[in-house]
């Protein structure tokens, strides 16, 4: 198996471990963080702070480069415009996040514990992603 595949697996594993350590994989804690007018648990600010602090260094190191250390092209999103899909989609995501306390990464980690509720959430989330693909497919058909 080539090294790119090994690093994909290891990266996913480290990411998942980080979510477990940080408390993000616990929906109850996530909802306490989102409850700013109640009994607020600010812990998750530090999750983002820690992740972004490392992220800034990493993305600064990519400046002026076109390829990764392993010779893969650096695939950055190139769009700069703020369109309604981005904004409406993100507003919608926050509603779903606030309802159950799960975002996609922590949901996958919770799925891995075998908790029935997490499995149901992930199945619904993947179904939602499939709905997006179906809607987009039918839209492009109508246009062309």
């Amino acid at each position, binding site marked *: 198996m080539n090294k790119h595949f090994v690093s994909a697996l290891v990266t996913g594993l480290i990411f998942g471990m*980080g979510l*477990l350590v940080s408390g993000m994989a616990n929906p109850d804690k996530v909802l306490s963080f989102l*409850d700013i007018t109640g009994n607020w648990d600010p812990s998750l600010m530090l999750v983002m702070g820690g992740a972004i602090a490392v992220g800034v260094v990493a993305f600064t190191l990519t400046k002026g480069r076109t390829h990764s250390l392993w010779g893969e092209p650096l695939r950055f999103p190139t769009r700069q415009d703020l369109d309604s899909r981005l904004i409406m989609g993100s507003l919608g995501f926050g509603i779903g996040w606030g309802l*159950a306390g799960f975002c996609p990464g922590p949901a996958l980690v919770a799925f891995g514990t075998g908790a029935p509720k997490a499995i149901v959430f992930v199945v619904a989330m993947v179904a939602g992603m499939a709905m997006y693909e179906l809607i987009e497919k039918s839209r492009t058909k109508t246009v062309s």
Partner: protein
Amino acid sequence: MTIDWTSFTPWASLSGGVLIGVAAAMFILLNGRIAGISGILGGLLVPKKGDVLWRALFVAGMVLAPTAWLLTGPLPEMQIDAGYPLLIVAGLIVGISTRYGSGCTSGHGVCGISRLSPRSIVATLAFMLTGFVTVYIVRHVFGL
């Protein structure tokens, strides 16, 4: 607002955040890709040749994180208060809207903010806003 100091876990959350940042750093520096969970997972639903295995392995790494964790000790607390109907609704919303919004907490919130992407900054503000508002309405308007 009152701060819930008893639930506050600054060191765990900060170190978990650093691990998440390390994963995001590895993925861009080695594989040349953004570690955005909704995009990686969603891409599996429209499989393209040569684009499946790395996604599947990344997701597998995340799902296997709790199993790897169990080798070292008991899993941290994971409390899911939402009932099944709410989990299904929330999962569908998170799935469809993260695809429309081109990302979630990882791709926009961690990677996008780290590289100062205007789209990601707007997206993160948008989902944080509706996340706060949703929890406010559920907990303090409906009192659930």
